[in-house]
């Protein structure tokens, strides 16, 4: 037998505990903004979506970089053309996804009577701008994590996904409230 429940628990706990600590921090930011979020539930709905997209894009980019590094067609340099192309395309895919899902969320919220005093254009601007900042940061962290772990002889496939999803969860919430403050919808 190669698997034992004790080993699975023992190996899982350190990384999971670290993740929990960071995610609780994200949760406390939400609690600090709870009153505004309950007044504007459309942003409450958006939070899992903002985080899911950035996590997926960062993980896909990381997996592609890992394959490139393992096979050898991506070099360990920030000037590598192949890596830069991957980075740009990730940002592009992110922008398209945020645009599509912002429209879907807006109409779901409209249908459920959860929209108060926000125009479609305003909402799209907030989500796409948040998404743009977030994707830039997450993609950059994905590149750094892949490169650093590869350089140290660790498998980037194991490292990138947990790092980018956790960082993305925190930064997504921070950027959302920053952009809302910039655009100024009174939240």
């Amino acid at each position, binding site marked *: 037998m190669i698997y*034992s429940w004790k080993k*699975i628990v023992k190996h899982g706990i350190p990384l*999971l505990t670290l993740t929990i600590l960071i995610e609780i921090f994200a949760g406390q930011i939400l609690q600090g903004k709870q009153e505004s*979020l309950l007044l504007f539930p459309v942003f409450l709905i958006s939070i899992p979506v903002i985080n899911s997209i950035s996590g997926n894009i960062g993980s896909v980019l990381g997996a592609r970089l890992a394959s490139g590094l393992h096979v050898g067609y991506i070099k360990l340099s920030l000037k590598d053309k192949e890596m830069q192309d991957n980075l740009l395309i990730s940002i592009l*895919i992110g922008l398209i*996804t945020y645009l599509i899902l912002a429209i879907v969320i807006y109409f779901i919220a409209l249908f459920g009577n959860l929209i108060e005093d926000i125009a479609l254009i305003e909402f799209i601007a907030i989500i796409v701008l948040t998404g743009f900042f977030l994707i830039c940061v997450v993609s950059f962290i994905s590149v750094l994590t892949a490169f650093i772990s590869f350089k140290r002889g660790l498998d980037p496939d194991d490292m990138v996904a947990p790092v980018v999803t956790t960082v993305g969860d925190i930064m997504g919430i921070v950027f959302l409230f920053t952009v809302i403050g910039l655009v100024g919808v009174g939240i």
Partner: protein
Amino acid sequence: MYAKEMVKQSLPLIVFCGLGAIVAGSTLGIMIDLLREIPGLIVVVPAIIAIRGNISTAFGSRLGSAYHLGIIGADNLWNEELKQNILGSLFLSLFVSVIIGFLAYASSFILGVYPNPFKLISIVILAGLISAIILNLLTIVIIYLVFKRGFDPDNITGPALATFGDIVTMLSLFGSAILVEVVL
């Protein structure tokens, strides 16, 4: 062209996962009254979603490796290896739920919000266990179907579990919060 291929291959799946996240987000939107009545509940949301994703995708990817090693297969699914994996995933869920509940309570307390610790921790444990059981069952069903058709489980379990995971976790949290509100 290369860029076009990349967009074509990954955009649909990422949009699809985003639609799953909208269902999870809408559950959060429906929970407004509960979030208002139970201080500290909103604190556990990012943690419980992230942890559930981590535990179930790791479970799925271990089963994928076990399949490639020839330890489990469509006609040899329910064996000791699978049972150990299920037990490990359940104990891990129980353990992290306790940590999430405790840290959410302690950090709120420090920041001057005073949740009911017993209520908050029981909601998190209940939600953690319910979602773990549902997602474990779902993983086994997905793995069985994937084996039967001869697909590579590594390509399928990750995105499938990430998408279902968010939804199942939020619904479990919603259900547990209502249950604990009614009982306690």
